[in-house]
């Protein structure tokens, strides 16, 4: 962070992009709303006609919806990783990017949370997922990984949202003090009367540390629990103790890539170069390289375990993924997750706008296909050869997938216009405070 920056300059720079939408913002918003309309229409058709409009084909009843659910939960990992784990380890490079990354987490989990409701078909009965005694006095099964998943995702969403909002309060107060009229009243209500008193800062900093400490195990546990949705079943290709670390590494890999995809344009369009540098992105790219390495190793390990187990069903599924009808899914996954990201080992690529942006998008494509590869190919090639099928998504499923991206981007676009997308107070903390002593020394 430049030491020439002053506290007042930080306030001005970070609040400048607020409220006044540019043409580019309107264009992106129009695109997002169009995607949202496509997704909405497709879901509406499914609600009217039922799950028959999805491409489910017995025994494949988990397809694009569960794939997309896992994808978005995974994307939601990077934000809390950056805001909580890097806070506890005192990594200074988190400061410029953590706010937008946290927002991304919240919106990604909000997107993921739609999919259980979409997937069950009768969305109006999705509340059955929660623990309450229903009409037949039948309670939920707490030994089911699906039940654990409800708890894990809803806890993660709640804690991340509180952590995000608490982090925002001092900055909302700064926005309040720079606005007038009804806008000021709105921000005043959200700032909860924050004015930066010694008492407020004292308890705030203590609580923030606790939130970070509480959110840290959640980052590592949520995708472990999601992986148990698969690993606890005896389906070939799923039943593996490797899944939790493999899923967590994949989630951090895709989440950091998504942060790069979102924040590169944000830095350019809002002219935040003084706060978000290329070395922020380089750090994220290195995190991707590390987790991508774990992922590639896990892919290899899976094959070794399948072969070494001497289980014909397990090995058969893994061979089918490479040479069967899903070869193109497997190929896309390996190309996008294991091969193309290797370009980031070249400093020139991981420090260039195009190199970062393109590879980050490729990673996210690859990570969607990874989940598709795990889910669809395993179910389509299970124990009984007579039940082997080839599941392909319908246009309804793909429309809802498009809608999910649009839903995510709509929230993100709204966020960057109404909230400071870089943490004002924390940026100031990284600067040398204004000292009389410095001014006197400079005058001499």
């Amino acid at each position, binding site marked *: 962070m430049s030491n020439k920056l002053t506290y007042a300059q930080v306030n001005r720079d970070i609040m400048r992009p607020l409220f006044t939408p540019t043409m580019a913002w309107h264009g992106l918003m129009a695109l997002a709303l169009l995607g949202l309309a496509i997704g909405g229409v497709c879901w509406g058709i499914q609600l009217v006609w039922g799950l028959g409009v999805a491409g489910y084909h017995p025994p494949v009843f988990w397809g694009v919806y569960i794939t997309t659910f896992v994808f978005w939960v995974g994307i939601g990992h990077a934000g809390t990783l950056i805001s909580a784990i890097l806070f506890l380890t005192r990594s200074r490079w988190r400061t410029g990017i953590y706010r937008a990354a946290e927002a991304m987490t919240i919106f990604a989990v909000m997107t993921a949370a739609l999919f259980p409701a979409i997937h069950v078909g009768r969305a109006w009965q999705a509340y059955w997922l929660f623990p309450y005694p229903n009409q037949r006095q039948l309670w939920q099964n707490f030994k089911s990984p699906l039940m654990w998943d409800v708890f894990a995702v809803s806890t993660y969403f709640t804690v991340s949202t509180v952590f995000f909002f608490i982090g925002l309060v001092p900055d909302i107060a700064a926005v309040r003090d720079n606005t007038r009229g009804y806008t000021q009243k709105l921000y005043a209500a959200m700032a909860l009367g924050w004015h930066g008193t010694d008492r407020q800062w004292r308890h705030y900093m203590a609580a923030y540390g606790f939130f970070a400490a509480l959110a840290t195990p959640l980052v590592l546990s949520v995708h472990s629990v999601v992986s148990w949705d698969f690993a606890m079943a005896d389906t070939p290709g799923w039943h593996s103790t490797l899944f939790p670390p493999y899923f967590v590494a994949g989630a951090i890999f895709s989440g950091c890539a998504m942060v790069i995809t979102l924040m590169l344009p944000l830095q350019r369009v809002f002219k935040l170069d003084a706060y978000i540098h290329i070395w922020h992105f380089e750090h994220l790219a290195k995190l991707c390289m590390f987790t991508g390495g774990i992922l590639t190793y896990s892919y290899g390990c899976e094959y070794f375990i399948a072969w070494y187990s001497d289980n014909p069903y397990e090995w058969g599924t893994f061979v089918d993924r490479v040479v069967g009808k899903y070869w193109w899914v497997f190929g896309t996954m390996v190309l996008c997750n294991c091969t193309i990201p290797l370009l980031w080992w070249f400093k020139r690529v991981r420090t260039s706008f195009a190199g970062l942006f393109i590879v980050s998008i490729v990673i996210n494509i690859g990570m969607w296909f990874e989940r598709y590869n795990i889910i669809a190919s395993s179910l389509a090639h299970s124990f009984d050869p007579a039940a082997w099928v080839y599941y392909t998504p319908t246009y309804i499923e793909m429309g809802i997938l498009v809608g999910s991206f649009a839903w995510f981007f709509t929230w993100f676009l709204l966020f960057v216009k109404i909230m400071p997308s870089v943490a004002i107070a924390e940026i100031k903390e990284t600067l040398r405070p*204004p000292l009389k002593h410095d001014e006197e020394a400079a005058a001499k």
Partner: protein
Amino acid sequence: MSSSHAMGASGATVKAVYKHLDCLLQGIHDLQHAGLKDFTVLSPIPRHEIDEMLYKGEPSPVRWFTLAGGILGGTMIFSLASLTHANWPMIIPGGKPLVSIPPFLVVTFEGTILWASMFTLTGLLKFCGLPAMNLHPAMKDPRFTNDCFGIVFERSGNRLDEIVHILESSGATEVTHG
């Protein structure tokens, strides 16, 4: 000098605005040295020096809320899972126990984190006094969320002149009372 607030029975309100952190710390030091304690320090950022001078390293009691929430949440969710299964004894293949610790630990962990977080939030709001809608108007200065620090005495008692003198001599760029 301005007279923005009416003088009460227990003295005038005094507000000092500082542009520099070292002057603010000097001001706090001088006030404490003179035996004055009943003031509020305002800052756009958290500074451990301020915390150390005012609270002498005493940890925030928010931590007890976190601990209580964690214990309560974990116990409640484990009990919910156990009582649910005891109330609806499903036939478990392989003779596995009805109340089984390993699978219930997953939801117990989630409940611990969730409740610890909610209690931390409650503690934060309680001890910070949020929502703080009745803060003294002298503290509601937009400069304190921008680039200035401040010291506010809601009531100066009978030591107004002394307080004003200390604040001015410590390097405050503006001292108002009234």
